[in-house]
């Protein structure tokens, strides 16, 4: 088993809608350059984008760390933000706390976390109200 590992961190600024999506685009481009299978890249890209948009919409700031090994692609999305009081509720399709402004931009359908869950092999969420949220999203390479 190889212990090869590529790690790259991307900063995400809260409320910066102009640059929203850059981190997930960067992740997607990196994986394409590495020659990973495109269905896998698409799943990772969708999950990364949802996580990034959650940070842009709710958090003050955050970071996404991409970790690629021969076995897995793991993205850790960690933010300083309001936290999620009830993770079970947040995971429910259609549940949303989006403001009218966020809905105006096409978000807030309550599909963010469920969509991440659907596109990853493993999703771990830890959150502290008032402090922030960390998502660990894993997609197996093979």
């Amino acid at each position, binding site marked *: 088993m190889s212990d090869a590992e*590529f790690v790259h961190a991307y900063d995400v600024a809260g409320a910066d809608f102009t640059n929203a999506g850059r981190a997930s685009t960067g992740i997607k481009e990196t994986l*394409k350059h*590495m*020659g990973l299978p*495109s269905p896998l890249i698409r799943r990772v890209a969708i999950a990364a984008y949802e996580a990034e948009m959650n940070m842009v919409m709710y958090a003050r700031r955050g970071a996404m760390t991409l970790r690629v090994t021969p076995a897995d692609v793991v993205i850790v999305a960690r933010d300083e933000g309001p936290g999620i009081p009830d993770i079970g509720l947040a995971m429910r399709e259609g549940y949303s706390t989006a403001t009218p402004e966020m809905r105006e931009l096409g978000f807030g359908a309550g599909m963010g976390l469920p*969509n991440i869950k659907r596109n990853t092999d493993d999703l771990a969420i830890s959150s502290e109200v008032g402090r922030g949220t960390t998502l660990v999203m894993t997609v197996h390479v093979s």
Partner: protein
Amino acid sequence: MADAHYHSIRFDDSACHGCMACLRICPTQAIRVRRGHAMMLEDRCIDCGECIKVCTKNAVLSLTAPPTGLGGFDYTVAIPSPALYTQFDLDVTPGTIHQALRNSGFDAAATLSWSCRAVTHAIDLFLSEYGGPWPLISSFCPSVVRLVQIKYPELVDQLLPVLSPREVAAREAKRTATAATGLPLDRIHAVYVTPCPAKMVSIVDHPGMEASFIDSAVGISDLFPLLAPVIREVQTSGAKVPETETAAGLGWAFSISLPSTLPAEDTMSVWGLPNVLRILDDIDKGKLQRYRFIECHACFEGCVSGALTVENPYVARARALRLQQSLPKRDPVDPADLRARHERGDFRTSVPFAVRPPQPLGRDIVTAIARMQERDRVAAQLPGIDCGACGSPACATFAEDVVLGAAEMAQCVVQRQAQLEEQLARLTGVGSPAGRGADGTGRPGDDGH
């Protein structure tokens, strides 16, 4: 035979000064300047022709056919791009242009109204039966098709599987010519009069088709000097030229060509490759699924601004609007005939669109991981100002080129300058000038001055 590596663009080393205009404008970062000349990375180029438009030295050549080389066939039919009709004064009608094409050595010139109109119906009929995935992406701009094939392989199945109006026009013109002359189809030569080099790619690589109905292409800019005097002759001869095109057909070709049966809010029209890239990127992330059809044009002003046109694109568009008003309004198609043809599959592409992913950084994941680490390590030493002086379009692409052995670190002039200043400072005992990094990165230093 489909050729995935075919390109309709070549760089002429004898004319290229290595000025980097094309390097900076290339939307897919497919150009490098090496040893003073521009060169193409074949697995990334989508033949959009932006490099041709920006080059002031005529060092980027389009591999369309020379207009003098069109003889030698039993029967040659010209398939004009609608853009050709916008390149002449307002009093030059499509009918006059057709007559001039026939007087210039073509045996026939195809009309486009029927095929344009037929294809709009074919799209409507296809959409009425299509169940997703959404949105569909228009497939008539060959650069957009190649962009999807190269950069968005997951989206090839969302390319609209309907033949382009130019292919339909060529097929119908060949059938008409066979009926008129008794010659077999393979003796009829169809020449597209093209506004851009990308159409050559769709002829040679024929995505979605077993073979193109078009045999070669001549650039509008190459044909223009020969055609213009013949047009004047036709006009001064006083001969009555019948008008064969109609507004109903050409209106679609000249304006936004969205399916008429879809509500406007379910469709989108995107112009210019930077915008097309952003939209495809969003679709690739799973966004925009509520849209049904997205029309994408590589050129900002559509085909009238192709790299091989001669007229200012805004003048050309104004003429197109005027032409739409002045041409006969008659609808050239019979809906019942079209439905029958649609049911026969007459307008459908015949093979799936292939994917053409570029060379990855490594053949296997372990190599790719190692090279990606190396790329980040190299990039961290670069200034991040994307000056292009190294011959790569951005610091990130330069880092990649270094890792692949296609460039050397010493080509970064900013880093070399910083190193020189550092050496000088060591030798003379004087600190490096304020604002210049002494850390070898070329980034502004914060170390003690």
